[in-house]
């Protein structure tokens, strides 16, 4: 050894270098990659930041509304300008197709996209799976996170169940529900559970969500982009209404309204007004200016959406093709002279925007936020309508009418037409349901059709019929004669088909609905 190392200090250097190199590398390699990205979940603040990320959750591209009688796509409007309707899922969903919708290239955004409901469920599960492991935060913080995540998961499951599964009835209990996803891992069983199990899960989540203590308004500002007592009560009211449990629905609607009952007054120019207009050239006529509500102004800036003061829980129905075409039946429900909702939300000749710029082929559009979004989360307006409907169905006609008229006072020009009157309970109910349709077209109608046809009252049942061309893989076959499409009361098409990509990716674990 002495021969090998003539100098002891050199020996030391070599040894230290080698030992340092080998011994400390565990610590050396545990340095995190970045300070602000690629972070493992370790703190309560991180979980809170996840739940604060409303931009992931607020927009839902649910296509089920296209199948309702609110949607005005039919052979006549299609022929008006076919270029307006080239989004294939749009056509497939409008006529309850189950053959081509699952193979369309556009996929299914609600089920399978980075903004889809399963992604929301992933966020909720990430919070719930890590809540006991993370450091920091008070007991209250963690309790709020827990209720918040349960609400997020509950809302997502409810929306998925009401889109891809049959209505939940005694007879349908054994039908296919949804996979039960409780972990962020990819290894979980994806078999579709029974509808009963899925609804038990939803109710269990709702029960946890109802434990929330955080009120809607904090420091004078409604914080509706996260869960709060009014949001959960409001959603519970919607849930029980859809289960045709009017007593429970009424109870939760009252709880929500007791906490927060602010409505936007469409009669006040400071609250509802026209924003930036748009001018279009019209073939053979003077140019035409579309008057659009101020809510149309901002496409990407959510300032007006967040500022919409009727929200209890901030959610939007999104439609990427930008054209909510109201059916004639829906248009005719409005009192065109007095209903401010017609004035602001139904934009006549909206199709000029798409280049349908001859005066004969102008089609109206329903415009709420920009061209693509309509509020779909629980709102005060929805609470008034649930309350009125439940009162009407349970025999309190006067209470029902006064409740719905509270809402109408903020929507109809002052005068004799504000107050609805009815000779009997059935008439009151009919008028309240019409009001509901006027107030929340495109967002609640699909769920309403499902419950109307499955409650004990046959008077509200709806069979939807539409006139259109036969549909093929490549779209409408306009060379064939127009035919009638019918959605029967208990059609199995009330459960939308799941996209084939999902079934293939599931490699046999996920099954398609039966038709």
């Amino acid at each position: 050894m002495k021969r090998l190392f003539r100098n002891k200090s050199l020996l030391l250097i070599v040894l230290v270098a080698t030992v340092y190199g080998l011994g400390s590398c565990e610590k050396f390699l545990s340095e995190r990659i970045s300070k602000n990205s690629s972070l493992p979940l370790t703190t309560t603040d991180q979980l809170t930041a996840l739940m604060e990320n409303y931009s992931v959750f607020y927009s839902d591209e649910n296509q089920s509304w296209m199948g309702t009688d609110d949607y005005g796509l039919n052979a006549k409007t299609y022929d008006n300008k076919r270029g307006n309707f080239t989004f294939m899922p749009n056509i497939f969903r409008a006529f309850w197709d189950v053959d081509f919708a699952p193979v369309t290239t556009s996929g299914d955004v609600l089920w399978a996209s980075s903004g889809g409901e399963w992604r929301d469920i992933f966020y909720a599960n990430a919070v719930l799976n890590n809540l006991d492991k993370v450091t920091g935060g008070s007991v209250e913080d963690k309790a709020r996170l827990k209720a918040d995540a349960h609400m997020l998961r509950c809302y997502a499951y409810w929306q998925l169940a009401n889109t891809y599964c049959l209505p939940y009835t005694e007879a349908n209990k054994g039908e296919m529900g949804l996979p039960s996803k409780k972990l962020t891992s990819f290894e979980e069983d994806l078999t579709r559970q029974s509808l009963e199990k899925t609804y038990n899960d939803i109710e269990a989540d709702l029960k946890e969500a109802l434990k929330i203590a955080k009120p809607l308004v904090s420091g004078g500002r409604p914080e509706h982009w996260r869960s709060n007592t009014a949001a959960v009560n409001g959603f519970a009211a919607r849930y029980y209404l859809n289960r045709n449990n009017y007593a429970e629905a009424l109870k939760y609607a009252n709880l929500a309204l007791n906490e927060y009952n602010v409505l936007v007054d469409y009669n006040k120019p400071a609250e509802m007004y026209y924003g930036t207009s748009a001018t279009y050239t019209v073939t053979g006529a003077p140019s035409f200016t579309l008057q659009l509500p101020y809510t149309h102004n901002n496409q990407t800036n959510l300032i007006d959406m967040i500022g919409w003061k009727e929200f209890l829980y901030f959610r939007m129905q999104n439609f990427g093709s930008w054209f909510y075409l109201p059916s004639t039946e829906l248009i005719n429900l409005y009192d065109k002279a007095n209903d401010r909702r017609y004035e602001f939300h139904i934009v006549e000749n909206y199709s000029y925007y798409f280049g349908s710029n001859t005066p004969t082929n102008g089609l109206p559009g329903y415009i709420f936020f920009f061209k693509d979004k309509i509020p779909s989360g629980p709102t005060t307006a929805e609470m008034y309508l649930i309350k009125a409907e439940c009162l009407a169905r349970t025999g309190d006609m006067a209470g029902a009418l006064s409740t719905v008229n509270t809402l109408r006072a903020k929507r109809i020009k002052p005068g004799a037409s504000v107050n609805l009157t009815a000779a009997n309970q059935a008439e009151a109910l009919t008028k309240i349901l019409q009001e509901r349709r006027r107030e929340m077209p495109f967002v609640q109608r699909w769920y309403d059709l499902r419950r109307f046809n499955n409650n004990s009252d046959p008077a509200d049942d709806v069979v939807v019929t539409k006139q259109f061309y036969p549909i093929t893989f490549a779209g409408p076959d306009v060379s064939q004669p127009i035919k009638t499409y019918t959605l029967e009361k208990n059609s199995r098409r009330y459960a939308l088909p799941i996209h084939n990509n999902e079934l293939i990716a599931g490699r046999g674990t996920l099954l398609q609905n039966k038709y």
Partner: protein
Amino acid sequence: MAFDKWGAQTNAGNIVSNSGWTWTPGQNALNEHKLGFITLGRRDAMLDSLKGLNNREQISDLLLSNPVSKQYNINLFSATERMSNAFSFMFEENQSNFKETYNKRFLANYRTLANVTKWLDFSLNTTLQHNANTNNGSSLAEIQSLAPYEMLQNANGSYTGTTLKYYTPAIERSVPRNLFPYTDWSYNPAREINTRSQVSRDYNARMQAGITIKPIKGVSFESSIQYEYFLTQNRSLYDTNSFVVRNTINQNAFWNPGLPAAMTTAPILNLPKGQILNQSRTQSVAWNFRNIMRIDRRIGPKGDLNFVAGTEQQSRVAQTFGQPTTYGYNDATLQLGAFPNGPGGTPVNGNQNGTGVPTNLTIRNWQNQTATFGYTNSFGYTTDRFFSAFGNAAYTHDDKYTLSASVRSDGANFITNDPKYRYNPFWSAGGSWQIWKENFFKVKFVDRLTLRVTYGYNGNQDRSTSFMPLLSLSSTPNVLTNQYTASFSSLGNPTLRWEKTGTTNIGFDYSLFKGKLFGNINLYQRNGKDLLASIAIPAVNGSTSQFLNNAKMVNKGIEMELGTMMDITKDLRWRGNLNFSYNKNRITDLFIAQYNSSSLTARNTSSYAVDYNANSLWMYKYMGFNTAGQPTVLGPGSVNFDMQTFIPGDARTYLDRTGTMVAPVTLGFMNSFEYKDFNLSFIVTGNFGHVFQRRGFNYPVQWSFASRMLANKFVDEALNAKSSEMLTLPVNPTEPRFYFWDRFHSYFSYLSQSASWIRMQEVNLTYNLPKSVLKKTGFTNFRIYLQGNDLFVILANKYGEDPLYALGTLNPRPKTTVGLKFDF
């Protein structure tokens, strides 16, 4: 004439809706007439005046430059028996193809090597570098967006206003420009390049020190450490006469175009007038510590042992610093402006009032829309750490038989809950046999022949994924909720493993006819497994695809090298080298739920398909026009689809796979001839057997924003084509989805062409001053040379398009250089 046809977007010339529709002057004239703002006579006069114009010369004079590089080198070297010192300094200036875009580079290097004692060497290497990259010039994209008749200068030399930034008639008609902070709204690229200073400066330093200890013969230890500091500073200063300043200040002034009195209402400034300054910097500090032991000993009478083992540690910390934009800046006095009405943001209670007047916290721009101004810094901080340990042993017996083995373990700071996972051992083993040394091998013309065989595994890891979900934090609170947010950057991959590639290699090295022919032959097969690929997973998991270790790929190939060195005559010597390689690639395993046409035609990793070459070019099959006058594309089940929607179904069944985009065969041929003091050399390269998509007609669409209807040079091809063979212009007067054609028209299989090429890469003629003359001058070396690069290329496609440089991109012009080089 395509104006206003085929589902074109119509332009109402409205200041709010259409101000950003940057159409060409020709489109503008047609549209203004249609809207009734100008007469037919005026329109035709405007079009006529444009007809005779051509801006080619002005573009060349005002925006383009000859690319020139200049380089100066100084090298100093001194050496004694125990120590050597070398110093070099380099200065380089590069002018780009664009005026006002150039860089300057300075590089200084000092190296010293000292034999401190017989058994200890010391080395030091220091490099300092400074680059100044000035990027004020225009760009190819901007020049291409000019209409060919759109002049940059008027006859009197003043700058024109182009239509590159606005629908200018609407601005002229509806904006009281004299009331705005800056009355000039025009944009001219030739003027703009002189009004800005966009410079990025690099300051780099690197230091390396090492010692080598040789305690006994055949054993050595090497230890070295390297430290690096890189700093880049970016600074963009825009003058008050730049479009950037005029436009930013004007557009962010509050004005309400909807008011009846708009034309006489002065806007309210939201940003101060003055220069605009943007600054940012990035900094990276890295070190690297390496220790190696080498043993090179004779074992027994016939054995040789060669052993190397070592460790290496690396760390790099990269930081970024972004500064908010400075408005109202004055570079002469260093004064700057404040936001007169604050930076904008959210009013606490949502709505604005109905009069269009901004409430206290919301500010609005010239279109009466909300505006916000960033006022915060931004930061980034990332750390990369690596650790490797490696060992390599080779034993040679009798100078003929060699067995070798190596192992290696690499670790990095992956995020994992099991530290063991950070390391993965890889290994290889091999042997070689020097056949020519065998007694039984007596072939006269063979000087040398060696057989080599190796087999081994190596691996790779993707640091962006992890076993567990990872998130990213927002750097500033959400502007609307005032809360920080987080999102998942990775959903986690619980089955994450290292990517592994097993390589088998068999080769021969040979030398024949006394060195007149030498080279090698290699056969290889690389089996990649557990390769990370984006795999379709059920969306129930929270994502429709995830990087999973699921793909397998095989590469097989042969590489050959053939060399020669011979004296043709006494004074003429020839050196030649021919390289040939062939590679075959196939994806053998991959799970994709649905092969969509959009992903297969994407020409990246999402076009991977099992059983096919990874670089396959998938293209649509054009099927001609149908009876409804719609062009069609082949779809699934032999059904023709019109081009109004995407095509559903398994795209493998109906797309044309025209070939692979990466050349399976490559060839390199280098030759040099020495004749007395002259040397002539040339390099020819070639790629064969692959395909590319040539440029076709661009089918310009009249659409809203930057839809300048500029047809490319293939317009005649599209006009004259048989509509059964090639997509022509629409045949229907109304074609509502003409804009959708761009999803198909550059993906048709008729555009696929052979991409093979042969290129004269370099020719060089050098004259060396003869030694006898040198002696008198004091130079040790003096040469003068003439060199040509990228002189010509032979293409297999008849369209004259170079697959390496698509039409419409900058391709290298033939370049000749004259050089002088001398050493003291």
